[in-house]
């Protein structure tokens, strides 16, 4: 099986690579369209700022490639946000795979960013197979995807938001699967099996 990690200007993909190493999966880190299209699984990681990431993707034509992929794709953190329609982070038009918006947490009571381990619940797809409802995952983010028909796992911070999304072959997680302990690893393993 060929697994590709999409190469773009998102920071720190190293932990994603090590997570795949721990599972024992070979991967290719590339921005080459042919390589991406021929992969069996595509991982779209993300740490960083939405508008900078989107301009890089546009420059490389990846903003057209990613939405047209037909194999299973997993976006994480900012990767997930870029798969939505629009992000309030620097008013950024995103790829629109999920036609929902990404908003900034607004609260005088809660600290923003949302940093640390939080429980996810209301599981609706195979990626959480084998996990208990309310498993804990590691989050670091100031923006969130609203709840929608694509929401397949929910998390509460300020208000309920989408912890995971799915539409057809597109999967996404707001938290960092790669550093969320055994449970996070299970989600990656489930993705590699779908």
């Amino acid at each position: 099986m060929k697994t590709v990690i999409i190469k773009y200007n998102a920071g720190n993909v190293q932990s994603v690579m090590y997570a795949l190493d721990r599972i024992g999966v070979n991967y290719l880190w590339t921005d080459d369209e042919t390589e991406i299209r021929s992969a069996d699984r595509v991982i779209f990681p993300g740490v960083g700022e939405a508008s900078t990431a989107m301009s890089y993707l546009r420059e490389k034509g990846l903003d057209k490639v990613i939405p047209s992929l037909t194999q299973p794709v997993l976006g994480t953190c900012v990767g997930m946000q870029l798969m939505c329609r629009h992000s309030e982070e620097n008013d950024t038009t995103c790829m629109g795979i999920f036609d929902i918006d990404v908003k900034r947490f607004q609260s005088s009571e809660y600290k923003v960013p949302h940093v640390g381990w939080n429980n996810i619940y209301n599981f609706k797809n195979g990626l959480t197979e084998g996990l208990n409802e309310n498993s804990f995952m590691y989050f670091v983010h100031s923006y969130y995807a609203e709840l929608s028909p694509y929401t397949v796992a929910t998390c509460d911070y300020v208000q309920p938001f989408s912890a995971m999304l799915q539409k057809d072959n597109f999967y996404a997680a707001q938290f960092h699967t790669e550093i969320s302990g055994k449970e996070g690893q299970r989600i990656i393993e489930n993705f590699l099996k779908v």
Partner: protein
Amino acid sequence: MLTKRIIPCLDIKDGRTVKGTNFVNLRDAGDPVELGAIYAEQGADELVFLDITATVDNRKTLIDLVRNVARHVNIPFTVGGGISSIEDVSALLNAGADKVSINSSAVRRPELIDELALNFGSQCIIVAIDTRFVEGEHIVHTHGGRKPTELRTIAWAKEVEDRGAGEILLTSMDTDGTKAGFANELTSIISANSSIPIIASGGAGTMEHFYDVFTEGKADAGLAASIFHFKEIDIIDLKTYLKEKGVAIRL
């Protein structure tokens, strides 16, 4: 619910943990990778590796260590000690560290915080503040708390947040090593003043001290070293205790 974090800190010298440990099941008590993996297994929420040597040769050893930790540990970890440039941070993040912690270099040149936040994102930049109560005021210290600066702790905490720090690691030199409890009052003032998470450090001696720092101290995370290394407090027992007392905890 977002949970409070328990963070063991490992002091590293020449790529090995120092201060010793009391883990009977460790093949090699000085191996930070093995110790880190054990803590992760026991439910530690994050790890901090503090490099207390900072020569050029040791930096290479540290990078190898970070790579090795990242391969074996599946929870977030932070590396601190002697970091003073974009290049230092880049090397550590590329080796697999999730966050870095800066201290003296930020005091020397506060713009470094802005530069790091811009280059790498606030989420991976922790500013460590060592503080001591001197003549009625909380004063920032450097060099492991030995050297006083001109900076007032509460104002400095606000400044590092404004400059883009993602979290603050607050160590009270007054309570550090005493095992008499965290500096709850100062921690709560700084936590109430900031919108970024505060990791409290210095003074943990009992499980109740963690309860106090999360409730009175309003800390988002509690960090400790020797009580975990010498097994005076077991992480699972601590987390069970806190959960039973009503604190939001990942178990």
